[in-house]
């Protein structure tokens, strides 16, 4: 134990000690000592070489979001780390536990514009939960421990550790024992009893209650508690984009997604409710529409582990700072007066019948599934077949990119299990899906990982397909919803800008051939009657498959709330 180790070896050992077994990265000069040391630890620390650091970052996000564990990405100084900026920003917006390890030029030349020097701690200060510039070998072990602790506790987020080359090369007898000392970091997990009582009291006085669950429920693994609470009090549950899967959508209390492309009935339920319990959602503007018009009649309870989210976008009546799971457990422990509960049940039952009627009237999903004419291939036809085939086989996870295909996937696919729907929400990062799926597939070799991607976003990061081959990963299937446009932008141009299709028509390479060039199986589907055979072939193929669905080009995502309008004002066609 008293042997000296280099900083790079210490880095490897600290990562292993703190639960890391998989990393995504790409080497270069400043980070080379780390790669040198990694060789000895390769049986415990799997390194997956990506083709672009952005890919490595999104892969780490996919790994983290599908497991709840820390996702690790690596880049070398200068461009290697600036390429990580987009996934770091994405992880920041969607509260993903991520550790970015960056090589930095030697401390002797730091600040002198040395070759490949970039101030990455300065650049990422506003988009990380915390970051470090480590210049001494003595600080490496502790920084890794603290960084992973910060990234994975409280409201998770990305943390960046920038280490100078000389610190990686210097050696010392390692000491991993230093206790974490973070006097300013005190996330609150247990909700205040008083507030919890007040929240329940308020709820029991209401007649039209709804519950809305978001990413916080996913991250706290609180699905069972949501179910127990919703069932006990018979409250309808609305799931935000990042809440999809945290509550099974075939449950009689499930209303599905709210917001800009949510369901009419979910938005109406919010607007007509007199009580809204938001657990682990941050009242993003894509959910609330024009904030001043959101849930005008409701008293609002907001549960969030990050106090700064409460009262930021929407005024609330009862704030509860805490972990979604622990707060729900406390809510379930409460034994309110029998009489109050009976009265509440009575009123809420009537409301439930009403919202279910709304749902039956407005959920277009069934309507699309039963479309009789399939000669023209609508995007919806593809989703219908995917839904059927996925359900028949089970064990699927879906990673979506950003655009129309993303919203259709959220609306039309079936979400039953937590961490099965993975997408770039807060940042809306095109190019997220393919590399993120790599991380998901590595973490879940037993599941089939579907990438649902647009023709535009796919071309931003498709180079990561070859990583799948190099790593012998077989459980990824890609469905490109190829509409020949940057579709979501085109939709806005069509609806609000008199069809000025500036910069949105899109020529693409032959994706089937591209797939084949990468050693994948490629399939092109040009009409509705070929969809089923293609998806079945994808499942039957023991290896990665890409299907290029050449769908109708100018189809819009409905329903839709126009920007800055109330969610009560949806356009449906």
């Amino acid at each position, binding site marked *: 134990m008293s042997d000296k180790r280099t900083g790079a070896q210490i880095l490897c050992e600290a990562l292993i000690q703190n639960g890391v077994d998989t990393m995504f990265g790409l080497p270069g000069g400043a980070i080379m000592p780390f790669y040198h040391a990694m060789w000895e630890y390769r049986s415990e620390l799997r390194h997956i070489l990506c083709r672009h650091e952005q890919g490595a970052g999104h892969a780490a996000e996919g790994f983290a979001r599908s497991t709840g564990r820390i996702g690790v990405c690596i880049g070398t100084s200068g461009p290697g780390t600036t390429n990580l900026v987009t996934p770091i920003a994405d992880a920041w917006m969607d509260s993903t536990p991520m550790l970015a390890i960056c090589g930095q030029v030697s401390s002797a030349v730091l600040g002198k514009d040395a070759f490949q020097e970039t101030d990455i701690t300065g650049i990422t*200060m506003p988009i990380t939960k915390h970051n470090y*510039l480590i210049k001494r070998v003595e600080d490496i072990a502790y920084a890794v421990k603290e960084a992973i602790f910060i990234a994975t506790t409280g409201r998770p987020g990305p943390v960046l550790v920038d280490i100078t080359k000389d610190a990686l090369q210097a050696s010392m007898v390692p000491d991993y024992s230093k206790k*974490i*000392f973070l006097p*300013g970091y005190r996330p609150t997990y247990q909700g205040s009893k008083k507030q919890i009582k007040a929240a329940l009291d308020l709820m029991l006085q209401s007649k039209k209650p709804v519950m809305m669950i978001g990413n916080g429920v996913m991250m706290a693994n609180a699905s069972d508690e949501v179910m127990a609470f919703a069932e006990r009090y018979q409250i309808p549950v609305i799931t935000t984009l990042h809440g999809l899967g945290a509550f099974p959508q075939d449950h009689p209390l499930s209303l599905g997604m709210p917001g800009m492309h949510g369901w009419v009935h979910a938005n109406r339920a919010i607007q007509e409710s007199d009580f809204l319990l938001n657990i682990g959602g941050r009242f993003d503007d894509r959910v609330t529409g024009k904030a001043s018009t959101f849930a005008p009649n409701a008293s609002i309870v907001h549960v969030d582990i990050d106090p*700064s989210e409460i009262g930021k976008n929407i005024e609330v009546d009862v704030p509860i700072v805490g972990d979604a799971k622990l707060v729900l457990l406390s809510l379930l422990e409460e034994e309110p007066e029998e009489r109050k509960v009976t009265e509440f049940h009575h009123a809420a039952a009537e409301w439930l019948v009403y919202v279910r009627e709304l749902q039956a009237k407005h959920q277009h999903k069934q309507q699309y599934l039963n479309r009789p004419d399939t000669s023209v291939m609508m995007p919806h036809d593809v989703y219908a077949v995917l839904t059927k085939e996925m359900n028949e086989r089970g064990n699927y996870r879906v990673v979506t990119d950003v655009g129309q295909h993303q919203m259709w996937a959220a609306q039309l696919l079936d979400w039953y299990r937590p961490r099965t729907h993975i997408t770039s929400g807060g940042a809306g990062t095109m190019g997220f899906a393919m590399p993120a799926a790599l991380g998901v597939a590595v973490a879940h070799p037993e599941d089939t990982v579907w990438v649902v991607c647009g023709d535009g976003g796919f071309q931003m990061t498709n180079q990561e397909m070859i990583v799948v081959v190099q790593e012998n990963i077989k459980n990824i299937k890609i469905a490109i919803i190829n509409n020949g446009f940057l579709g979501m932008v085109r939709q806005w141009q069509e609806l609000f800008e008199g069809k000025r299709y500036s910069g949105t028509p899109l020529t693409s390479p032959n994706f089937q051939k591209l797939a084949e060039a990468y050693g994948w199986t490629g399939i092109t589907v040009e009409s509705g009657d070929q969809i089923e055979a293609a998806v079945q072939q994808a499942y039957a193929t023991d290896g990665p498959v890409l299907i290029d669905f050449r769908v109708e080009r100018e189809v819009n995502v409905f329903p839709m709330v126009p920007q800055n309008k109330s969610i009560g004002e949806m356009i449906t066609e």
Partner: protein
Amino acid sequence: MKTHILVVLMQDHPGVLNRAVSMFRRRGYNIASLAVGHTETTGVSRMTVVVESDHVEQVVKQLYRLVEVLKVSDVTNDPTVEREMALVKLHVPSQQRAEIVALAEVFGAKIVDVSVTAMVIEMTGGPAKVDNFIDMVRPFGIKEMMRTGRIAMVRGARGHSGADLVDTGWQNDVAGAASAAAQ
């Protein structure tokens, strides 16, 4: 917009001021004045920031999101001692010297440098008093002026010591709570 005086205790790490100021900038909070320095406790520095905002509780919460921020207090409505300092260089012909010396005396300002045609005066006091002094000397011709940011301290025994903020107890609480939540 309302003006608030925040006293912020933070870990004395490189970059911590940068983090705080960068947060103010990107969230559009307007800093009217800012002063930072060491405290009685090793490892803790203290910032007094005067901020213009109608949503001060958001400002406070966002400050707390910074890992190195230990404590934030809005002392706007507390009885406080507030001080600013100004160094003012005046162009003073010899015949006006006496008049300025008299004025400085009234304000309790110190004359810290005198030369044939100029004087440097050190004025310390509450922000209003410093303003007032500067208005009074302006007609004499200000050649140079530099004001510090405001610093503030609550009166009486109660206050904002850093000493009790840097124990390790909390960390065990966080680790415990995190693992309890993960069960």
